[in-house]
């Protein structure tokens, strides 16, 4: 990931690098929720445990991101909330879809 030079200034426009970083983060989250769906589906998890797996894998992905950034969130993203926690709802539908598909493929059909 590239390092954006964000200055704490209301006039300053964030560079293209921030956009690249967020695109990478979005891709990463999609991979994460895909994997979470596959795991939840194959293991036959039920109900709330499945959603717990999604949250757990989401947090694991955020933790790996933190390690990769050497914990200096401000250099790569606007805020730590943005980088770690913000997108949890948007990929939930994707997770549900993959979970339903794999659960059916492996356990039922």
């Amino acid at each position: 990931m590239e390092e954006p030079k964000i200055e704490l200034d209301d006039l300053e426009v964030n560079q293209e690098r921030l956009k690249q970083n967020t695109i990478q983060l979005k891709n990463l989250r999609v991979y994460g929720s895909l994997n979470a769906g596959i795991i939840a589906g194959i293991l036959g998890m039920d109900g709330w445990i499945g959603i717990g797996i999604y949250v757990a894998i989401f947090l694991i992905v955020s933790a790996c991101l933190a390690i990769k950034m050497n914990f200096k969130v401000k250099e790569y993203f606007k805020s730590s909330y943005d980088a770690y926690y913000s997108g949890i709802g948007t990929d939930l539908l994707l997770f549900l879809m993959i979970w339903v598909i794999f659960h059916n493929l492996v356990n039922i059909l």
Partner: protein
Amino acid sequence: MSDILIDDRIRDWVFLPIIIVMFMIQMFRGLLTKYMDNRKTAQKVTSKAQVAEMIDKNITQQSQRLARLHGLLPDQSFKMKRAYLCDHEQGILTKASQKPAKDPMQSMSMMNPVAMADMLKQNLSGIVFMALQYQWVSYFFSGFVIGKVPFPLTQKFRTMLQRGVDVQNLDVRYISSISIYFVLLFGGLQKIQQLMFGDDTDEFVDDTQMQMQMQMMGMPTMPSFGQQNDPGKLFIAERTRLEGVKHTFELNKSSDKALKSLKRFLIQ
């Protein structure tokens, strides 16, 4: 409630085909819009109404830019620019806001054939495919149970998830094929497509998803958002906004800022 055993053939001939077909239609839609975008030529401004529209749009853009970036201008320049726009008798914004409200029929730009073609293209690559897939799935694959959702649901979902299956006591977790269609539709095959195709399809994809959701909520989508029936109000709002701007030239603060960022840089 004992578990229902579902035939292998349902998986081979129903479940997987629905997924594969929907995914392929999604990719086909992406390619189709790319193709149509490549063939779009630049619109020529032909009619006088369009010229007036462009002028209004440019005026609002100019005033918004001024309101946003005022810190880059020294005091005198900012005052001059603001006076050009907001002056009581001669300012552009005051003159524009005194124009009569446009005829709502004309301002819809449905009369404009190019915009109409645009709308048709968007509809085609969005709604038509959705309706087509729905018809296909509900015609061929209705009347039986196709799978099970992993989470427990209340009885209220029964009508939505078990369309066509009329067994009353069946567990709500068993779903019919149309619900797989909905899960796939909302779940975001688009995101997987984005993963595979990179960020070219970024802007388009967001657009149709948003458009689909808006049409489902019953709101009409206008292809051009700036078309309001009363542009006078818009200009008055812009004018009040500009007049309320507290202007400071950023250069005055720049030495402090440079000190701050130098300190930050040296500390690291």
